[in-house]
């Protein structure tokens, strides 16, 4: 391993357990130090220049290309050995600085690798179609009376139904996360993605990440059960993964 070519720097994707098969990965370089391997690639420094970066990050094509590249490398590494994913944009100008980072954080990397070895991350999202959930909650028929009184009563019922629907969503999400956590080694409930970003009409009520043993089918079966049980409430489940352990990379305190 020599220094990154002029005008480039080392972008570090993740830190893996040393494994001879890593050498077969294409398009990446390995920087090794006492049992830990930083998986890196030389990237043009100007693209990651601090001044240019905010603009790049707001360029959808650039962001998508580089976020996918980051994920692709981690997936390839994870297929071979245990890996701690680093956050996007860890750049070092020299090999020595990468070695310094490995050395400084060695204890943390080792304990995380120990924890994630043989495991994968699965993502579970639950989506609720609010109108159909509100329909299942039903409501009283509007009593006969003057038009004005009937209107007020209908408004009150709508507000009550919407309040009940919100409470039911929280209940469903909580139940799902609890049951999924029981079949996982570790679990994180992330903030649901807002509707203006998902572009979907359904509301996301659960955005969970679960660390499970590689090849373990229990979580997938539990999602299937939840999907069956909650379908009458207008809930749809989505399972993503296996992912490298992005959500379980930080050391627990």
């Amino acid at each position, binding site marked *: 391993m020599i220094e990154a070519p002029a005008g480039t720097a080392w972008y570090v994707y993740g830190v893996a357990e040393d494994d001879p098969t890593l050498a077969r990965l294409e398009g990446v370089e390995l920087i090794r130090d006492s049992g830990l391997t930083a998986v890196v690639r030389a990237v043009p420094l100007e693209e990651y220049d601090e001044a240019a970066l905010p603009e790049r990050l707001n360029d*959808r094509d650039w962001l998508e290309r580089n976020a996918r590249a980051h*994920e692709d490398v981690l997936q390839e590494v994870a297929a071979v050995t245990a890996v701690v994913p680093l956050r996007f944009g860890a750049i070092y100008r020299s090999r020595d600085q990468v070695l310094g980072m490995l050395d400084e954080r060695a204890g943390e990397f080792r304990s995380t690798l120990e924890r994630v070895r043989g495991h994968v991350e699965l993502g579970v999202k639950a989506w609720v179609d609010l109108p159909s959930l509100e329909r299942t909650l039903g409501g009283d028929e509007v009593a006969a009376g003057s038009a004005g009184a009937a209107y007020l009563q209908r408004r009150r019922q709508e507000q009550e139904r919407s309040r009940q629907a919100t409470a039911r969503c929280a209940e469903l999400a909580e139940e799902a996360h609890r049951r999924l956590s029981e079949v996982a080694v570790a679990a994180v409930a992330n903030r649901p993605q807002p509707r203006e970003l998902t572009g979907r009409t359904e509301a996301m009520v659960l955005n969970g990440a679960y660390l499970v043993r590689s090849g373990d089918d229990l979580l997938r079966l539990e999602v299937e059960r939840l999907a069956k049980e909650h379908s009458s409430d207008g809930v749809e*489940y989505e399972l993503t993964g296996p992912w490298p352990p992005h959500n379980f990379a930080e050391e627990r305190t």
Partner: protein
Amino acid sequence: MVERRSLAEQVTLLDLVDRVLNKGVVVTGDVTLSVADVDLVYVGLRLLLASAATLEREAAR
């Protein structure tokens, strides 16, 4: 239940950003995204994705 394998081409940009930019170990490199920068990404992405979603919906019509 909808199942999506995380082969990168099947994963949404939003899911990628959620993991690749928001999770993972933070190390101090020569270039490191500060929290403020990530917030900027979110602001930018919000606008970009919102407009992309709108475009896709319009295209689907």
